[in-house]
């Protein structure tokens, strides 16, 4: 099943992000968004071991996008297509200057550090099996989400549930389960009246 632009817009709507604005800015090559002002790409250039929490150095947009897309291919069912464009569009609206965006960046940065130290490569370069294993090794499969919690809880919040929420609040994600108007998606007042197709 193909994820479309409409799905990304719907996923953003479900979490209150104004995807359209950020999307336009980035696509027209306007340069860095607000959060980029704080970032320090250089400090992240080569592997720094596992001292992931070393301060303000946040991964840049491309690193976050690459890692999140890589995780999405693990988290989403194999029948879903168009994952990269979907995640990319979703993050257009999500990686704004908010505290939430900083949480995503920080957590992805820590996961990238862990990937480097345990597997010798950043998340985006790991095999699908290794990405799956990495998420389980940090404990994100059994952790309860918590945006201020342990690494496992933050990964569950900012990576795993972030991406699952995006998918399953979108019409295509809902349809995978037989619900084309999932909670969080303003899909109108027709579908509840219609019988199974």
């Amino acid at each position, binding site marked *: 099943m193909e994820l479309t632009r409409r799905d990304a817009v719907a996923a953003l709507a479900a979490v209150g992000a104004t995807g359209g604005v950020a999307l336009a800015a980035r696509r027209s090559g306007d340069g860095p968004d607000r959060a980029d002002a704080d970032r320090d790409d250089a400090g992240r250039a080569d592997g720094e071991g596992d001292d992931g929490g070393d301060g303000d150095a946040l991964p840049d947009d491309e690193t976050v996008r690459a890692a999140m897309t890589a995780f999405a291919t693990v988290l989403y069912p194999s029948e879903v297509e168009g994952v990269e464009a979907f995640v990319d569009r979703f993050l257009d609206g999500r990686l704004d200057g908010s505290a939430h965006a900083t949480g995503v960046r920080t957590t992805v940065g820590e996961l990238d550090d862990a990937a480097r130290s345990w597997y010798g490569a950043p998340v985006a370069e790991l095999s699908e099996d290794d990405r799956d294993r990495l998420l389980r090794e940090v404990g994100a499969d059994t952790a309860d989400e918590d945006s201020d919690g342990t690494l496992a809880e933050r990964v569950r919040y900012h990576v795993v549930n972030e991406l699952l929420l995006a998918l399953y609040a979108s019409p295509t994600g809902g349809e995978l389960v037989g619900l084309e108007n999932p909670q969080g998606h*303003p899909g109108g007042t027709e579908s509840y009246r219609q019988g199974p197709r």
Partner: protein
Amino acid sequence: MSAGDASRDGDRSPVANADVCVVGSGPAGALVADRLAADREVVVLDAGPRFDPTDRLTRQERAIRPSYDRPDVWDVGGERDAHSNSGEWFYPLNHARVKGIGGSTLHWQGMVMRLHEDDFNSKTERGVGPDWPIDYGDLRSYYAEAERELGVAGASDNPYAPPREEPHPMPAFEPSYSDSLFAEACEELGIDMHSVPNARNSETYDGRSACVGYGTCQPVCPAGAKYDATVHVDRAEEKGANVIDRAAVQRLEHDADRVTAAVYATPDGEEHRQTADAFVVACGGVETPRLLLLSESEEYPDGLANSSGTVGKFFMDHLFAGVGGTLDEPTRQNHVGFYTSACDQFYDEADEDIGPFKLEFFNYAGPSPVEMALTGNDWGDDLVDRLRDGYGTHVAMGGLVEQLPRSDSYVTLDPDRTDDHGNPVPDIHWSVGDRALRTIERANEIQRSVLEELGAEIEWVAGPDATGPAFHHMGTTRMSADPDAGVVDADCRTHDLDNCWIASSGVFPTSGAMNPTLTIAALALRVADDVREQLSQPL
């Protein structure tokens, strides 16, 4: 932003020469304020904040994500909202209210029915509980007005509803697919289904959007299609009312027969005194009696307006009765967050032994897949398999049951625990009698028969042992013609104080089994008319 607020620009100081001070900006307070604001100087004080309407989608995310509890969605909890539970039955108070501009309607479900005629005459018609000092006829035109004010989508296909004089302001929502499955079973059993009134726009109404199907009505409607009391707060402000948020009233100053000032605390730690000619207390069914008890004095040693000793007494809620299960076919649940069909057929069979109850056919039975997806140890193909397994074939019926007023069910102050201002917190001592428990069983019996007729495998029953409250706080400042038997008179004015009214389900002498807010709204409009009339005479 509206006129009243913009002119004061966040100023929380008292308003000079106020005619009316309304305490609480839920639907009760907001409707009173709106109705009086055009030609009176009105000030509204609310303990909670003014929420930013653009935050609603973020609050919706909280509603879906597992790390937030329901009270977190509207920032309920903490020291401000501390409370105790000394009763046999636990009462989850902070799931049952919101503090802030708009009050608990920010969170509510928005089902709005009129009480039945017999509900006003429980003693006479059913042999239990007191009669109200007013009857359906006294509220009938106010009900119609309340339906227009809130914006109610409904139809006249319910043969069991009390008489009405005009259609609802908006057409009812069409029945759901699962309603059509229930309809076949109900027809076999001779059970009537009919539409149900929703304070939710089936079409654009009053400048507010039609429902767009977000499906998170309870606890938040991002579209503004579900009515909430910010509608009337905004309108009151446009007419010139001053609305002060984060202004928790600590006590009502008074002399023997008049309230003289509402003393309120602001976030900067200051206390202010708002004077007015008339006071309308609209803090909900728990905080209203608490504020009266906190305002005790030499004249009123047991609490303000409490000469009858009934302030806080007779706390009631509706009890939930439900049965759910699965079919071996798709049932198309969780597209929208409200229900579209109900059954009031058994309501007026109520007597001494069995109370009135109403039945609901859910459109949101079983889990929501997106919420399921965020909990569990799986992802990828395993997760989608689990979701397909868990979603799709659920059905459920709910229902509400009347609880009678009892002297062992009450709200009082807990002397051992204080809130963020050092005031004793409310102690909910909730007790439920046998009649309500029997009524739950009776509702379950019918619900079970419908599900069995449908061929459902029954998976859960919310019976007498697993029931819970519907979050409707009633009875705690009872209305009675007799000053020794109630707090307010038939006009909702306190017997003790000439210039103090209570707008709240706290005034209900009995609860019926219909969701209370349409009746709260009708009474609030009536209170506003009485305040206007009294203000036009020397008080």
